């Protein structure tokens, strides 16, 4: 009779491994935060806007610094500061169910509005709401307008309910840009609008977008050289934030593409915080934002099992480029409209289903995993239906885990690990088919 096998706990964690592109991005972000926090000294003005529908090229035309509240909330989540910010916002009176990006931002302001570089954020000069399907954004800026007593501009993007962009939609948006958005930005910034300057930025945008798409589509290879969700979140950082349309972004994406292509050529898998990922055992498509308070822990649950994410919808919230759209310098205002219309949050449920179904098929994924965000109605509504439909259309199994954006109270590691591992073992069993699977 042999005794039950006992294993000892794992060894202590090593230092985090980073790609060179990650280090490059970190330097870019640090420089950007320094630009923002030194605005009072340099005399620059700042504009807040959101990642989906981010009109960075236009904002730059007015010499405004783009300060994105969502990105600040993500930074707070990654630095484990968001928990206290969320509590602070709840103390002010925001309910437990409110989007935790909002609460992190409001709580951060209440606690001195300190940027990741340790210096104070300046109050924004203008809030540019480019509305792309998430109703909470509107309420968020209502709160910020009240707080900062600053100007607010709204660009309304019609919802893609029928799944296509019509000339009327573009016309409606261009009219708003011409009659409302641009004149107001001119007045607030004191800078005259120069359409050629916009064209120049859009040209840069398209270059970076080409490289981004090549990076993301590298995941079609087996093994995938990237993780298109956890790694993907780093890759989208500059282009979804304040760098789209800049030389910096063009350089970064060229560098990133070369890095990924080298991995691809060498048949290597993704780099994880613990170094090179081992054997690729599962290929997943993920829907929904990640959790940021336990980002590495969450990622580790995947790579420890040999699961790599080959495509994700979240890496499309700030723009969908893999179906061919590029910013077009020849139609500067129309292209901004078309960009806003196409972002993931503005896509209807049937469009999301189709997109995810395509991803599962084109990236030869084993199935779909949904990370449902407790405090995000914009993403969560309809997710179960999306799951069922994608399952039906692809014949591949799907599963559901639940967490939150930046509220650490909603991250239950044991629960998520349990579900994820169950799902991966389910995939394994399905692969083995009807025969007795172990």
């Amino acid at each position: 009779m042999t005794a039950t096998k006992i294993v000892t706990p794992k060894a202590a964690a090593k230092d985090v491994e980073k790609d060179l592109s990650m280090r490059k991005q970190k330097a870019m972000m640090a420089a950007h935060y320094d630009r923002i926090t030194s605005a009072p000294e340099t005399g620059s003005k700042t504009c807040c806007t959101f990642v989906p529908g981010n009109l960075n090229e236009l904002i730059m035309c007015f010499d405004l610094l783009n300060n994105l509240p969502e990105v600040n909330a993500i930074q707070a989540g990654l630095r484990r500061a968001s928990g206290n910010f969320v509590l602070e916002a709840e103390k002010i009176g925001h309910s437990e169910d409110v989007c935790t990006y909002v609460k992190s931002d409001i709580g951060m302001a209440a606690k001195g509005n300190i940027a990741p570089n340790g210096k104070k954020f300046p109050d924004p000069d203008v809030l540019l709401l480019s509305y792309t399907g998430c109703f909470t954004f509107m309420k968020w800026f209502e709160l910020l307008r009240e707080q900062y007593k600053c100007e607010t501009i709204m660009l309304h993007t019609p919802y893609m309910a029928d799944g296509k962009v019509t000339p009327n939609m573009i016309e409606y948006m261009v009219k708003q840009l011409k009659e409302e958005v641009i004149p107001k930005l001119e007045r607030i910034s004191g800078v005259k609008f120069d359409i050629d300057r916009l064209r120049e930025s859009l040209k840069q945008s398209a270059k970076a977008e080409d490289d981004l798409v090549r990076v993301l589509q590298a995941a079609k290879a087996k093994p995938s050289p990237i993780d298109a969700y956890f790694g993907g979140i780093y890759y989208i950082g500059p282009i979804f934030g304040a760098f789209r349309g800049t030389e910096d972004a063009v350089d970064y994406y060229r560098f990133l593409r070369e890095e990924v292509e080298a991995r691809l050529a060498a048949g290597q898998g993704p780099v994880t915080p613990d170094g090179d990922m081992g054997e690729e055992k599962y290929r997943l498509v993920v829907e929904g934002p990640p959790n940021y308070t336990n980002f590495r822990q969450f990622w580790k649950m995947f790579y420890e099992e040999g699961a790599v994410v080959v495509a994700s919808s979240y890496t499309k919230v700030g723009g969908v480029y893999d179906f061919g759209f590029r910013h077009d310098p020849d139609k500067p205002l129309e292209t901004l409209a078309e960009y806003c219309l196409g972002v993931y949050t503005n896509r209807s449920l049937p469009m999301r289903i189709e997109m995810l179904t395509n991803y599962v098929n084109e990236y030869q994924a084993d199935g779909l995993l949904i990370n449902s965000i407790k405090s995000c109605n914009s993403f969560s509504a309809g997710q179960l239906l999306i799951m069922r439909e994608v399952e039906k259309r692809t014949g591949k199994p799907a599963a559901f885990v639940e967490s939150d954006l930046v509220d650490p109270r909603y991250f239950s590691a044991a629960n998520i690990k349990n579900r994820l591992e169950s799902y991966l073992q389910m995939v394994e069993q399905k692969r083995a088919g009807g025969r007795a699977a172990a």
Partner: protein
Amino acid sequence: MKTFVGIDLGSTTTKAVVLDESSQVIGRGITNSRSNYATAARVASEEARIDGRFTLFRRALGAAGGLHGHLDEFLGALERAFRMEQFLEQLEDLEATCRGQVKGERFTGVEDGIREALVEVFKRLREEAPELYAPGAKRKSDFFRDIAGSRYHNHSEDVARESKLPYDLLLNVYDKSIIEVENRPPAGALSEKFRRALDRILAADPTIKAEVSAVQDNIESTLAIDLEESYVVGTGYGRVTLPFSKDHIRSEILCHGLGAHMMYPGTRTVLDIGGQDTKGIQVDPNGIVANFQMNDRCAAGCGRYLGYIADEMNMGLHELGPMAMKSDRPARINSTCTVFAGAELRDRLSLGERREDILAGLHRAIILRAISIISRSGGVTNEFTFTGGVAKNEAAVRELRKLVKENYGEVTININPESIYTGALGASEFARRAFEGGARMERAA
């Protein structure tokens, strides 16, 4: 012989199932999960092997003529005598450990008195042991901690009073010792304990001696069978810290799905309500999980919730169901939040609502939550198997039947008396398959 062990480490209890090479269950064991998973796993698998030994006796003695119709009686007596042997052995360990705890400032001046009192307490515990293991005797629990604990409390209170010693000192030595004792695997060879148990029943009833002698060889040859632990698979909510290596761990969801399929091959939907989670699982005709949903980090409405309610009402967990069954007007309760359960209960009692109606309402609330989880996993498809500790609760089952019928029509609902072992059963079959797969690969190489 080769055996395959599945261990399900739950938040409350740890279960083990031992399978033979033809996927037949030969033994089941259960123990409290303690704060030590490794010990719980060891104890539960040991218990399952002991139970397995009885299965082997049954097989061997049945084949040898079945003791002329007295087989059940004989095996029953053997099991009781064996359990008593085990109990006495652990009692001895507890006594020695308690004696060792009589030290330090608190005991200054009373050391001898407390030691003498301990001798008396344990003498009384040993004296009443045969009564605890008499035919038909009802024990509150089969776990040593529960049996020894409640009896120790009674006796030490009496002894303390009689010898005018502080009762709390006697409790103190017990509290410090029990965890140590229950985390120590029982010592001594099992075969010896079986032989001592056999001697005990022969001494108690010499008339069966001739009959037993006739099968003595069968008994000895059965005891000689080595139950080789060929492969172990662990599962359960404690999986994050399961004391097994990765190759030996399977998801509890898959184990429950497969276990339910083994019990009822027609199963397509499984509901498992355990201590701290509720799972809705869809399985295909091969027992492979097709989809699942479970509660998130909040364990509202799981088994533990009923535990709190029982504590709050000063009742035993097993008494809740029967009381709820007496209700004809269930209270409307929507919240299954465990934290607020006590407050809600007290509020309703103070408003004059009947205990049985409140309990019936609470059971309904739990099942409503479970139904929501099942519907998110894809609904109920015939046949439907209900597993987990809560499946033993008749009031919960009544509500479940009602709600399944309302929402999904006539569906066969399976509830196995051994349903608490569903996860361990699935795990043991995974162990058997993993071993078979490994052997196949070795042959191919």
